[in-house]
């Protein structure tokens, strides 16, 4: 499926319009300034500071056919103390898919995995996913300690989705803080209310655990502007204990960031690297050309984040 035909989708156009409109019209505000699209740093809002962020993540292309997923997030952040930042946000998704899954079957995206389209259906859905809360506490600052350290917790609750995401965030700066590097380790068990295999009349809560190790570096090459890269390694397990691994993918790509006095904008483009391998619980047909396409793994991702401080 060509990008041109993907763009013809009415839903996609509407989403683009909303994002652009949001960027233009949102009132003056901001959250923790994100130099990276995916990787968090230990830089937090100071006490009493507020920020609004809008995220849009486009996930594109699975094993074949077409696949486009747009994840939206609208977020409010607040500095409770100089070391503790809290946030609240809404998550929503639009997706379309056709012959995108293993062996060419139409497969819904992971947030809407409870849908059951036919193997040859042209799937199109727009849905609210859930509300999230977030808290980040900084233990050590990269400006006064040898390394910045923060811990992060994010519960998400939705109609058919629950998640508890925990992160360890490390940050080390170089060159008078113009070169920022950061590492995140994420452990995130998640539960989905889904149809029981073999019995379409029954539903139950199933679970899996996402475990990610992400690294990023960015250099401030001019006042207000920085650029760098992000490298993500994402794992999924059908257990809480690092056993029964199903998926393991690597993503890499550039990030550019503008940070001003009242707003910031960050854009990241990622491509999955051909480094995937089979594990005990990998779904047959989910790996093509050494890239994994199960669940929330796809070939390309674009994430744009914009924030306003007030």
């Amino acid at each position, binding site marked *: 499926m060509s990008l041109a035909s*993907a763009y013809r989708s009415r839903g996609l156009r509407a989403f683009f319009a909303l994002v652009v409109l949001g960027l233009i019209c949102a009132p003056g505000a901001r959250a923790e300034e994100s130099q990276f699209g995916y990787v968090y740093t230990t830089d937090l809002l100071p006490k009493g500071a507020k920020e609004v962020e809008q995220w849009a993540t486009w996930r594109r292309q699975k094993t074949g056919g077409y696949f486009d997923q747009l994840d939206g997030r609208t977020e409010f952040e607040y500095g409770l103390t100089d070391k503790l930042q809290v946030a609240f946000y809404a998550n929503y998704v639009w997706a379309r898919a056709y012959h995108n899954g293993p062996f060419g079957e139409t497969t819904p995206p992971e947030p809407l995995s409870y849908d059951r389209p036919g193997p040859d259906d042209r799937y199109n859905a727009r849905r609210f996913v859930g509300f999230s809360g977030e808290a980040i506490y900084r233990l050590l600052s990269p400006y006064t300690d040898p390394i910045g350290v923060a811990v992060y917790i994010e519960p998400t609750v939705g109609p058919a989705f629950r998640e508890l995401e925990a992160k360890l965030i490390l940050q080390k700066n170089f060159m008078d803080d113009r070169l920022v590097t950061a590492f995140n380790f994420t452990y995130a068990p998640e539960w989905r209310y889904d149809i029981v295999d073999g019995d379409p009349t029954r539903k139950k809560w199933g679970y899996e655990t996402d475990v990610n190790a992400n690294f990023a570096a960015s250099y401030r090459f001019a006042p207000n502007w920085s650029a760098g890269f992000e490298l993500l390694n994402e794992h999924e397990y059908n257990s809480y204990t690092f056993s029964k691994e199903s998926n393991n993918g690597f993503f890499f790509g550039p990030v550019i960031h503008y940070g001003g006095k009242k707003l910031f904008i960050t854009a990241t483009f990622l491509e999955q690297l051909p480094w995937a391998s089979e594990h005990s619980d990998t779904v047959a047909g989910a790996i093509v050309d050494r890239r994994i396409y199960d669940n929330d793994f796809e070939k390309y991702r674009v994430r744009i984040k914009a924030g306003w401080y007030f």
Partner: protein
Amino acid sequence: MKSRFLLIPAYALVISAPVQATVYLSVEQAQALMFPGATFTPDFVTLTPDQMKAIEKSSDVNVLSPDLKVWRASTGGWFIADQVVGKHEFIPFAVAIDAQGAVKAVEILEYRETYGDQVRNASWRAQFTGKTKDAPLKLGGDIQNISGATLSSRHITDGVKRLLATYALVLANQKS
């Protein structure tokens, strides 16, 4: 075919017009404030690579530029206008050094960052008064940190330390 989706960052960047800089003091205003009644003679210096290395070794702070904007005050002492790295932009600041090589005053000339403008507070800047090259000038040590403005307060502290080393190694040896 190129997707117009890729234009979204461009739209976003176009609308992110630069914010007006907040200029608190011009160089002339800072000079008048820090050396009342004095006249000033420019004595701009271009540091040699060896001098830069010596300053970095003495202060343990990177020298950002070899060009140093220095004025001699008619009443004795030196006025230096310089800048340090901020979160998004440089922070222009000025240091007045008396004839004995001690800090007379520190002023923030412009501040364009979202947060951290508490470094302009007179009580925080007063901590530098009387410091010489031999002072530790360590944030969280002899200079109190400003919670929520850590990056700015650390870089200004480092900047003063670097300029005191510059005075001791270069300016103090200049012929008048």
